[in-house]
């Protein structure tokens, strides 16, 4: 585990871990959840938009590192197989400024096709058609091309899925269309639940997300992520950190956004969320803002997702291996 300003552990955390006596022996023995952070300081062109070729290269770097391979295509072949329908769960609620970037999605689609997934087996999806369109995606459904579809068109499964405190109807796209899902949240804070990253992005798969924001989303976010269709189908999370936001989310607030110019890749959604949360907290501190705990919106659901009942991943910085590329 590396320690530095861009990682999920703070100096205080390191000190506490050492005092607890868990750092050396325990951390070394346990297999760590890998979180890859790829960044490119020269990502943007003169106009400020992300350069598509640089985004692709950065994506390749992240995937190669995560899957420990020299070939981006080989990396993508570990995510999905030909014959599977792959859904990309984007985050478009806030419109173009704070949505999953179309350039990133195009890059992912390109690599998926090169890995043997035809266009017709790629589905870009979110809650509403109008959200997708506001984020720059064109909602179309042609049998031979990449599909873009909102749950308002696809509908929801008839059967209620229940876990803990959560009971929801799941998107038909998730349940009946996709074999595999790549989760594409955006690195941003959330005005009620603290942060909205890998775990929270799956609220876009249920029919009643409004019911699960009380108590800062705890334990609901964790309970929703226990739904079998989500646990079994989400293969990977690539957090869009090209433009990140540390305050005012989920709405797009340009005054509180910054060009992080990065991607965060993980299979462990809890580790990714913990890492992303720490990045946002550090930015908030840099800007003189209070930590989320003091604003009563600490994302406690992250710890709940890691607890013995859920075991969706780890939020222990000693067990998270952050790799920067």
């Amino acid at each position, binding site marked *: 585990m590396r320690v530095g300003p861009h990682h999920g552990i703070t100096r205080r955390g390191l000190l506490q871990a050492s005092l607890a006596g868990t750092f050396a022996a325990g951390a070394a023995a346990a297999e760590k959840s890998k979180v890859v952070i790829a960044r490119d300081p020269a990502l943007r062109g003169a106009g400020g938009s992300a350069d598509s070729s640089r985004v692709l290269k950065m994506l390749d770097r992240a995937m190669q590192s995560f899957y420990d391979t020299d070939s981006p295509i080989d990396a993508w072949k570990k995510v999905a197989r030909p014959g599977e329908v792959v859904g990309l769960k984007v985050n478009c*609620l*806030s*419109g173009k400024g704070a949505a999953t970037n179309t350039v990133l999605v195009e890059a992912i689609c390109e690599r998926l096709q090169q890995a043997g997934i035809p266009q017709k087996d790629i589905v870009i999806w979110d809650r509403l058609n109008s959200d997708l369109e506001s984020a720059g995606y064109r909602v179309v459904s042609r049998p031979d091309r990449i599909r873009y579809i909102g749950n*308002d*068109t696809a509908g*929801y499964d008839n059967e*209620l899925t*229940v876990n803990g405190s959560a*009971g929801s109807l799941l998107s038909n796209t998730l349940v009946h269309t996709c074999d595999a899902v790549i989760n594409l949240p955006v690195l941003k804070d959330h*005005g*009620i639940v603290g942060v909205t990253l890998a775990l929270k992005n799956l609220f876009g798969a249920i*029919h*009643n997300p*409004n*019911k699960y*924001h*009380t108590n800062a989303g705890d334990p609901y976010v964790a309970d929703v992520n226990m739904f079998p269709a989500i646990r079994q189908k989400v293969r990977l999370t690539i957090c869009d950190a090209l433009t990140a936001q540390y305050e*005012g989310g*989920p*709405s797009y*607030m340009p005054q509180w956004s910054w060009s992080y110019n990065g991607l965060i890749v993980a299979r462990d959604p809890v580790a990714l969320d913990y890492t992303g949360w720490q990045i946002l907290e550090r930015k908030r501190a840099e800007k003189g803002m209070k930590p989320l705990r003091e604003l009563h919106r600490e994302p406690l659901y992250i710890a709940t997702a890691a607890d013995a009942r859920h075991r969706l991943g780890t939020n222990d910085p000693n067990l998270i291996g952050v790799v920067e590329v």
Partner: protein
Amino acid sequence: MDRRAFVQLLALPAVAARAADADARFTVEARFYEKLPYKKIKCKLCPRECVIDDRERGYCGVRENRGGTYYSLVYARVCAAHVDPIEKKPLFHFLPGSMAFSVATAGCNVNCKMCQNWDISQVRPEQVNSTYIPPKDLAALSRQNQCPSIAYTYSEPVVFSEYVLDSAAAGRAVGVKSVVISGGYIQEEPLKQLCARVDAIKIDLKAFSDKFYKEVVNGELKPVLNTLATIRKQGTWHEVVYLVIPTLNDSDEEFRGLARWIKSELGPDVPLHFSRFHPEYLLKNLPPTPLPTLERAKAICDAEGLHYVYIGNVPGHPAESTWCPQCRRVVVERAGFTVRAVHLDGGKCRFCQQVIPGIWDGARI
């Protein structure tokens, strides 16, 4: 009632969900909210006081912030409509034997794990088929179907308050009364406006414990008790229903606490209905309420001095009927939702002239 019967009843075109979502007729500016910086709003309709970002919705799922203005998305957006006996609400001291034209929109501001109408209460309006029934049409339909009252029910009328207020006014103008069937989770100002427009309110008091409200309802007890106290002060006729759920809200202590509070704060004449639970939604693991439990609840409340304690969802039980608290004879005989006989004269027991509070034959007694 299936969709075909619904359409035939209304003789109005049904609107597919997708088209309805785009229909601006259902969208009106909300009446109870305040604007905040950065295009946020704070809803002031219910105690949740949701603070909502632009493009987001409140907990209820049927109100949306659009560019800093808050909108109801369910104005006249009826997703359920039936002609029901008034006893089904249940309202036992309100026009007995009459029919109520009963309507609902999608949405609710709580999430009761035992909700029997979750397929409309826990969804967004675009997730159910709806029909546009503006207030005047609703009043007219009520009259056409020989219903002396409109009942706003099934889901949670608080979340479609604008529609209730306007429809109640339209109904009153043509001699149709309005009744609200609600969980009572509402702020005082909108509640007072409702009280001024409607003729009766039945409150579902889910339990008499904070713990239940937190864990099973995702709400709060105190605001509902405040609602009942306010309704009483406003002079609107009201009745209380308590759905008894085995192991969760069926203790003697709770029943006793409930009875004492009602007697103290609302008076002994408020009808209290103990209703039988049936497994549903997120509480399918519990059994239906045993009859002895309901009878125990009634016995405790009777002993505490409440005059009109009923047992519901048990067709044929003697506690479905209204008994004069003075002479102990049946003054309204019921079997299920059917009223078999009424022994009241001008709101008084025919046998001993005891005043039986309620709204009988249109007049408030």
